[in-house]
Every structure is written in C-alpha cells, then in structure tokens.
C-alpha cells in the first residue's frame, strides 16, 4: 500500500493523454482515408492499403529510427518545423503524437474501412436522393451505421497507443511529464532492479488493457450488425 502511494503515477496520466490525443487525430485523419479506401476505384488503392498496414508488420524500432531521423532539426520534417516553431519535433509531446498516429494508424483505419464497406454506398445514395448534402448524409446516415467500426477503431487505437514502447523509446528522450510514458517507466524500473514498482505499473497496464478490451467486446455484442 505504501508502495502504491509513493509511486510516481505521472507516466500513467501522460500515457492516457497521449493515447487520447492520438485517437482524436486518428479519427480526424482516418475517417476520410478509410472512406476513400472503402469506395475508391483508383489504382492507388492497393499500395495505399499496404502503406496503412505497414506499422503492423514493421518492428517499432524501424519506425522509431526513421522518425528520429525525420523529426530531428536536420530532418525533412523536423527542419521545417523548427524553422516555423523554433524547436524540432523529437523529444516533444507533439513528436510523440505524430509517432503514435503512424504507429496506431492501421488499428483505426482498418476497422473503419471494414465498417464503411459493410454499410455500402446505398444508404448514402438514398440520403442524397432526399437532398441531403454529402457531409450531412455521411454524419447522419453512414457514420451511425458504422458505429461498431468506430467503437473498435477508438478502442483499438487507444489501447495500442497505451502499449507503445519501441517508437517512444527511440524518439522520446524519457523526459518526465513530456515523453516518459508508462511502458518506458516500467522498463526503467526493471533496469533499476525496482521490481516492486515494475510489478505495480505492469499490473495497472494489464488491468486497464483488459478492461478496455472487455468493454469493446461487450459494446460490440450489443450494437446491431447492419447489412448493406
């Protein structure tokens, strides 16, 4: 109990913030991307799908290594960013959000794409024929029908970002309150032979992840499956 009180819970809150912001960014970017992937006839569809799925198969160290290079003050992204804001992206919370967005991209885009494909184009066409604008039709017809996809996307995106380690390790710099997330804190405790603290934080992450996944499965069971 004393351990629980004496523990530094900062990394847990930081991790929750990172996962939350990342999911919001991913929904904003992932929704149009998933829609396009679901219905486009473009030849670019297959290569874009492959790019979206890349973080599933690449080791996080590959992503982290490229991001460290790209987001640094001499990098193709970090350079212009530094000219604009005064500091590069590596070792910042913003940098972690960008890294996590790429890292969790497939976990948001793929469920959304699947849901949009299941809804199909028919409901949108009907709504359009009733003079709804495209956006109006999307928000009032298509996205409620794809609710199940959204729940999966939000939860998986959030949970996957919670568990992020390799990428943050490489671009974060372990700054308390800025980039020292839960997985890094656990790693540090293990390295420092502070096994009690490592156990407590690991258990917290395990329980949290289990709860999140249980909730998503429970919700999904209750939501109706919509046929096109």
């Amino acid at each position, binding site marked *: 109990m004393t351990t629980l009180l004496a523990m530094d819970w900062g990394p847990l809150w930081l991790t929750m913030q990172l996962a939350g912001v990342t999911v919001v960014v991913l929904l904003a970017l992932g929704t149009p991307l998933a829609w396009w992937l679901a219905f486009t006839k473009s030849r670019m569809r297959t290569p874009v799908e492959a790019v979206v799925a890349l973080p599933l198969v690449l080791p996080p160290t590959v992503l982290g290594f490229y991001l460290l290079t790209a987001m*640094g*003050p*001499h990098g193709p992204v970090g350079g212009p960013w530094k000219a604009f804001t005064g500091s590069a992206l590596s070792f910042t919370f913003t940098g972690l959000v960008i890294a996590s967005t790429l890292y969790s991209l497939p976990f948001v885009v793929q469920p959304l794409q699947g849901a949009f494909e299941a809804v199909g184009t028919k409901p949108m066409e009907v709504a359009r024929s009733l003079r709804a604008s495209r956006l109006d039709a999307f928000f009032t017809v298509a996205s409620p029908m794809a609710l199940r996809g959204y729940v999966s996307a939000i939860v998986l995106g959030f949970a996957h970002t919670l568990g992020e380690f390799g990428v943050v390790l490489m671009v974060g*710099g*372990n700054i308390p309150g800025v980039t020292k997330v839960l997985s890094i804190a656990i790693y*540090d405790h*293990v*390295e420092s032979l502070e096994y009690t603290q490592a156990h407590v934080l690991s258990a917290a992450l395990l329980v949290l992840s289990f709860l999140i996944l249980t909730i998503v499965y429970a919700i999904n069971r209750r939501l109706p499956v919509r046929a096109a």
Partner: protein
Amino acid sequence: MGAEEPKRRARMAGGLSGCLSVFVLCLCPPSAAAEEVRVAVATNFAATLGEIVTNFERDTGHAVVVSSGSSGAIYAQIRHGAPFDVFFSADAMRPKRLEEEGFAVCGSRRTYAVGRLTLWSATPGAVKEDGRSTLSGHFEHLAMANPGTAPYGAASKQTLQALGLWNHVRDRIVQGENIGQTFQFVVSHNARLGFVALSQALHSSVRGTGSRWDVPAHLHAPLRQQAVLLVNGRHNAAATALLDYVQEEQSRTIIERVGYGIE
C-alpha cells in the same frame, strides 16, 4: 599466466557450489577438448568482444556464442535461468550481485575494461576545449544515458554535479535508455551535445568528425566494466579460458585501442 590459469576439465562433481568449486577446479589438469561457451555481453562492448572472440576461437579451438543486450536485461535473464556461461557487464554492480545471489562463481569477477566518458557533438567546433564553457553555453538538448539505469548516465550526472552545472542544464537533458541510444540522439543531430562513451566517439563511422571533450576521470566514479563466470559455466573449460584470454596482452591492446581504459 600459464600454469596459474584455472584451466579445468568438464564435468566435475556437480554438487559443489560457489567459491569451493572454483578452488577444486583449479587443481584439475587442463583439458585440451574444444568446448562451446555461451556469452552474454553488454551491448556497448559487443563489437569489441566480437573481435577478441575471433582471435580466441582461432587460438584455442573453442567455440563462442555471443548474445548482447542491456546489462539489466541480461542480469534479469540470468536470474531466471538463462543458459549463459560468462557475463560481460557494463558495470560492476550486477556481476557483484550475481555473485552474492549465488548465480555466479565467487572469485571469478574481474574488471576487463574501464569506460571513458566524453562530451561529444556531431557538429565540428560545437564542443570547445573547455567542457565547462561548452556546457554553460547555448544549446537546446544535452543527451545522456539514463542516470538511474545506465552506468554512463550516472557518470554523466556526477560530472555535471562536479562541474556545478547540474541545475543549469537539467531542463535540457534528454535521456537515452542506454549509451547506444544516447549516441544515436547526438549523431542524428537531434541533440547538439551528449555524454557518450569514448569508444563510440572513436568508432570508425564517426572517427575524426564532430568535436569532443574527454571528461577527466576524477569528475566521476570509475566506470568499471566487470565480467563474471556464471554457475552454468563453472565446469566449462572454454568459459574460464575466455575470461583469462580477455585479460591477455593482445586483447588488452584491442580494448585500449577502441577507447577503454585498463586497470
């Protein structure tokens, strides 16, 4: 060395443990049979050990399987039954603990290299001859290894404290989990300055580039890197032979050349 070398034969009476078994093993005649030794080595020494191992295999006929990782991870693995015979740690604390906890053979622990710390930048001229003025000057990030987990990180912190600059720079510190990652931060220009190992600054990929200030050894506790014979390897002739080989003249020459000190 010669006859003093504790060369031993495989498969001794198995029940003996700790210091006693070392004593008994020393009385045994040397064995010429080639054996296989499984070695765990701290990542920062892996490449150097690789060079030494090549010579060792050529000279003795023994075979060596090398695994590298962080000293902390290897330590935890050994405690949980990892099948290593010898451990080359990046510090002295973990080998000592393994000895105390009965996972390593008492009396086998020795310092094989002493790490040297350097303040390095990938930008030529960024580090002046005087490290104190460089650290007092303008920069956005100073990279160092995690002082809580990595020996080089602890030495970096001690150096900053000895210079009276810890509070001055602490908000600009970015931490690598280990010295390899710290070096990556600096070589990629993500951090302008960094405390890295001299062996990294002398690595062929960057040798002669950038700028550096070698930290005087009296500013931090010595970075003793120790090796230890593990209980798994106590009857393995190749394991003890390797431990001795690393301290022979030709190995020491290699270790010093790549940027470590020798005790």
